[in-house]
């Protein structure tokens, strides 16, 4: 006998077998595949029903939706009339009623810009980015503050509610990312002076609680600037928040920079690309893509922490809802107020989270 074998006809490729089960199959294989797993599944389901039923009953089934005063509340479930009656204040704060259209225009403009950037098919992205970073802030500032083109001046202490939350969050997000990128690059710089400066900046702002930063911005800063200069409280908070979060952002971005193999920069150098081109075209696009989850995580933390501005007397979304709770016509609706505030924050943060996952998938390049 001969031990060696050889194949003279090759095996042709066959399609994979069809093993879709449908719902029943899925249930059987994922939830009820064995006695222990079945018990665990049943217990989990029971727990969900037990926990969710009263919540749904309170928030939806027994809730009161219509009306414009306290009389509309039956008291069996949540009374969302409390929210709807105060909705305008929750969105606009103390912004003068006659001028609220200016806030609407700004919000609409922002929504369109974000949607334009978020939808891959839209053309002229480059120009929209320029608009978002330069044009929009100017327009928004002129519109909201006024004092030009016959628009009456609205001082920032009258801003409040959702519009203030969005202002703080947007400025924080748009400001802290580029600043954080610059700090991260600076921290890896070959120039010792730049590097030390960036390290000191990052470590200072990272080591101080945000509440302290806000107190310092509102209480201490005026001590150093002459009395005549009315240095806007909101502006001070914005700068504090931007610096604070840019330090976090810098460390997130630095993590991404460190993950890029050295060969990438060497290849870019060998092609004669200058430092900023190497960073802008080769290193940062890869590094930022790697740390999208970390960046968005920071954005989400930033968004939620905007509510801390209430401690320096700014009325953000949460603060304005809290203020409503003390209204003598509406005592006793704290639960509705806080649930609604939580829901609003959750909607924004969850959208950011979903969009970041979408981005990660879209930018995947098979490596």
């Amino acid at each position, binding site marked *: 006998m001969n031990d060696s074998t050889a194949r003279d006809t090759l095996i042709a490729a066959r399609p994979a077998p069809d093993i879709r089960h449908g719902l029943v199959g899925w249930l059987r294989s994922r939830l009820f595949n064995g006695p222990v797993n079945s018990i665990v599944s049943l217990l989990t389901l029971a727990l969900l029903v037990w926990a969710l039923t009263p919540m749904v009953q309170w928030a939806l089934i027994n809730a009161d939706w219509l009306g414009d005063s306290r009389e509309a509340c039956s008291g069996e479930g949540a009374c969302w009339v409390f929210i709807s009656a105060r909705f305008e204040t929750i969105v606009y704060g103390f912004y003068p009623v006659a001028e609220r259209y200016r806030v609407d225009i700004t919000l609409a403009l922002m929504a369109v810009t974000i949607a334009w950037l978020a939808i891959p098919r839209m053309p002229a992205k480059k120009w929209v980015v320029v608009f978002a970073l330069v044009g929009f802030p100017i327009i928004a500032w002129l519109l909201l503050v006024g004092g030009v083109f016959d628009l009456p001046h609205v001082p920032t202490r009258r801003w409040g509610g959702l519009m203030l939350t969005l202002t703080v969050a947007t400025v924080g997000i748009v400001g802290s990312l580029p600043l954080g990128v610059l700090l991260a690059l600076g921290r890896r710089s070959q120039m010792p002076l730049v590097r030390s400066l960036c390290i000191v900046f990052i470590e200072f702002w990272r080591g101080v609680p945000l509440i302290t930063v806000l107190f310092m911005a509102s209480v201490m800063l005026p001590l150093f600037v002459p009395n005549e200069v009315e240095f806007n409280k909101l502006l001070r908070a914005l700068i504090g928040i931007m610096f604070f979060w840019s330090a976090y952002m810098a460390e997130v971005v630095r993590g991404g920079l460190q993950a890029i193999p050295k060969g*990438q920069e*060497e*290849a870019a150098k060998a*092609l004669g*690309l200058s430092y900023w081109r190497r960073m802008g075209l080769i290193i940062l696009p*890869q590094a930022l893509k790697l740390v999208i989850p970390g960046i968005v995580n920071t954005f989400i933390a930033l968004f939620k922490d905007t509510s801390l501005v209430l401690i320096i007397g700014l009325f953000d979304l949460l603060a304005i809802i809290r203020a409503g709770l003390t209204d003598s016509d509406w005592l006793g609706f704290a639960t509705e107020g806080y649930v609604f505030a939580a829901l609003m924050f959750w909607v924004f943060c969850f959208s950011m989270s979903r969009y970041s996952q979408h981005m990660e998938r879209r930018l995947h*390049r*098979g*490596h």
Partner: protein
Amino acid sequence: MMSSQAATSVPEGTSPASASDQPAMIEISGLNKWYGDFHVLRDIDLKVERGERIVICGPSGSGKSTLIRCINHLEEHQQGDIVVDGMHMTEDVKRIEQIRRHVGMVFQHFNLFPHLSVLENCCIAQTWVQRRPRREAEATAMEYLERVQIADQAHKYPGQLSGGQQQRVAIARALCLKPEVMLFDEPTSALDPEMIKEVLDVMVELARDGMTMLCVTHEMGFARTVADRVIFMDQGQIIEEAPPETFFSAPRSERTRLFLSQILGH
């Protein structure tokens, strides 16, 4: 001394221009480099004429990569002069970038930009360094991709290509800038055996076209076919320099003989 006219294996009119009006392509004199206390390059003198093809070999850690990386200032040296195409290497960023525009480099691990398509990899430096219009840059890129026989993959991303294909793209990317000299740092060492030939074929082709080349490689067949000179390095110094025939048949140094017996080892 070995004369650069020793080239015989590559035919017709590609023999290096010596003693002409133009300066040598690369002139390295008295080059010394340390990593901390470690003396990695010791008194290196090397002159590369235009059109000359040089293969550098030597044991791992002997400083071959460090030497060729000094030529485009991927590594800094502490002593000695490097003159590329008549330009003195200084610490001036503008000067370094200017020299890099004349020098193409191919790396062991390809170092393609994974977030850019093959075509974009080839266009990016043309667009941002040479400021060529996009259409022109793409035409040039396609021309070189055609030459390395990979034009049909132009719209794929590097991660979708095999190692051999990636290395050919890397060669095309460097050629797009029309460099005066090409540096290769073990271009086939990271490749599976069946892909080595496709890359070497491209390099032989390039040598035929008269490109000045400095290749760190252990592909001795390649050295025999195209090299004008083979340089053997050990412990940061140049031990032996000879035309390939002499180098392989009658190495003068004991170290070279030992190295050759290991690498050709039968």
